[in-house]
């Protein structure tokens, strides 16, 4: 490992995993953490518990803001364990000089998103730090949810399972990058930032039991599939043409040299399902407006264990690897 933390250590991919293994697991690993799930199941599996911190520039972006994101992020981690979000803590680190009006707007956005998830804030904390100590505003949220769908785990995948993605991928990553200072791409693209619990609840109400679900946040679809392939010791084979990607996302990726599969999402999840559940799942998820492109993208096999392959429309195959490094635009 390098001597200092680099931005690559926060990428949700390989270096991030090295940091977790090399520092945090080294000292703190236990039965809960070693499962590496989105949220830990506690109290005999009745409750799910998780935490997440949020820093984003710009604070307000097309499709959301840091407040909405801080609720979606934590509540989605609970929802992905089949838990209904109930109780949330909210901690804010605010830079001296931050506009009161902006803070109020962010907190209003938090309130609105809590209503969507059905959760409440039960504890909070604020720290104000001298100018320059944080970039405007950092938020940490933790959440507790009540498990309503049991038995969801990254080690559940078996040969023959179907892989479904809830909507077109990469919108958040592409929108944020386009909005970033120094890139200045004009685009109508909106982040996919959204709460997923209502969708999971709809699946539950329809009697569907996914084997595994995960929201494809940092590291994107590629990271989720690679984590599953490893955790379940299987191969995941996806068809490139079946992965829904918006034209705007494709365009930004082409310009900057990114892979849509490595871009972050904040309201897109991937499911591993018994193949007989696919049709119903897609039907249920499509009742949500943003999931118009929900579709099956691949299957679980045992061809290349712990690997993800992607087949092109002209039948060539390549590995879809864990994203590595900091996302940097290509040079020419």
């Amino acid at each position, binding site marked *: 490992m390098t001597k200092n933390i680099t931005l690559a250590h926060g990428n949700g991919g390989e270096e991030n995993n090295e940091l977790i293994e090399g520092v945090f697991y080294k000292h703190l690993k236990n039965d809960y953490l070693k499962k590496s799930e989105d949220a830990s199941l506690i109290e005999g599996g009745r409750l799910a518990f998780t935490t997440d911190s949020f820093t984003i520039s710009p604070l307000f972006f097309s499709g959301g803001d840091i407040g909405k994101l801080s609720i979606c992020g934590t509540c989605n981690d609970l929802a992905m364990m089949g838990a209904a979000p109930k109780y949330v803590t909210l901690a804010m680190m605010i830079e001296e000089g931050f506009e009161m009006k902006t803070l109020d707007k962010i907190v209003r956005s938090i309130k609105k998103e809590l209503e969507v998830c059905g959760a409440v804030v039960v504890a909070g904390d604020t720290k104000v730090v001298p100018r320059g100590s944080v970039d405007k505003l950092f938020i940490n949220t933790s959440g507790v949810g009540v498990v309503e769908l049991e038995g969801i785990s990254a080690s559940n995948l078996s040969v023959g399972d179907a892989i479904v993605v809830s909507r077109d991928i990469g919108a958040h990553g592409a929108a944020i990058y386009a909005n970033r200072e120094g890139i200045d791409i004009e685009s109508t693209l909106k982040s996919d930032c959204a709460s997923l619990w209502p969708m999971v609840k709809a699946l539950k109400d329809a009697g569907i039991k996914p084997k595994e679900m995960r929201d494809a946040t940092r590291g994107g679809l590629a990271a989720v599939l690679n984590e599953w392939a490893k955790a379940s010791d299987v191969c995941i084979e996806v068809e490139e043409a079946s992965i829904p990607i918006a034209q705007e996302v494709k365009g930004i990726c082409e310009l900057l040299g990114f892979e849509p599969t490595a871009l972050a999402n904040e309201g897109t999840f991937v499911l591993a399902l018994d193949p007989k559940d696919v049709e119903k799942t897609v039907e249920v998820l499509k009742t949500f407006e943003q999931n118009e492109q929900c579709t099956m993208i691949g299957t679980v096999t045992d061809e290349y264990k712990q690997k993800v392959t992607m087949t092109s429309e002209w039948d060539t195959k390549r590995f879809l690897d864990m994203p590595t490094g900091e996302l940097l635009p290509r*040079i020419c």
Partner: protein
Amino acid sequence: MPKQELDLFKVFRNPEHMKALAKLIKKESKTKIRVMEVCGGHTHTIMKYGIPQILPDTIEFVHGPGCPVCIMPKERIDHAYILSQQPDVIMVTLGDMIKVPGSHGSLAQARSKGADVRFVYSPLDVLKIAKENPEKKVIFFAIGFETTTPMTAALVDQVVKLGLKNVLFHINHVTVPEVMKELLDSRDEHVDSYNNRIDAFIGPSHVSVITGSKVYEQFPEKYKRPVVVTGFEPIDVVEGILMIVRQVNDGRADLENQYKRSVSYDGNTTAQAFINKYFDQKDLFKWRGLGNIPKSGLKLRDEFAHLDAEKIYDDVLPKEEIEDHKLCICGDILRGMAKPTDCQVFGTACKPNKPIGSCMVSSEGACAAYYKYGGVLR
């Protein structure tokens, strides 16, 4: 019903066309052809779209030295690192360059230790950084082939016109025809003859938009090597290969242009004039793995020497040559002598997140492309 959207890429990635072109190549290709794709963008396309998987064994890709990050010798990266450590300096460069390790580390590591290192997508963004930080020196570490050189020239132009006093340049621009010539001309004890390794060239896409296809005339004429200037899309590459196969079958060596939608014979003459106004050829430029190549690199013209960070910081910048890592064979790979998989540290000690050699650093480097996409390919 899904929305009807304009698809900008489909036409260049149409599976029926891909399969049909591959079928024609299989039918027509009779003799073994070693095709060098000079440009890293092509290497990326070839690996990403699995093009060798649909072509017959007669077509062998020899990956060329056309990735601006990969050919950057450690000496130059050390310059960038050292400049970033100078007081009141903001070091600015283009994306990928931040990750390349020199002997002190990469610019990303310099940044994590407190240096002010930034990347821009467009060199003109340097103007904004310079205006916002009048008390700092902003050094633009300029890299790239003919594609990015005009953008640097445009920045120099603005700095001169606006009379900005706090922008300096460290120029590492290199040119394609000179290195192609070197590959065909050079002989040393290491290799009997590169000459025999390359039967035909796929000419770069974006570089040729600027230079025009005229710069490759010498290769069919003098060296009897077919050159087909080809676009970056998978269908472009496969069509380019078909054109090469047909030249070889006919016993021809011609300069052809598959990428007509963007490349003309004369190229972008405005950009060329801009380059000539501000830059001059260096007598020698050292390429990683290839050594010193005459006239292959650019420098600021003498009248703009006051903007040249290499001159201003001359006393702190080392001049010694640095050997490449013993186990790394990037040099052979850049010369088309070896494949990434021939390297004993490939994918083990050398990976994209901790590269030993430069070919693993940039996504356009042959090693990075093999690592990322290569496992299933033949």
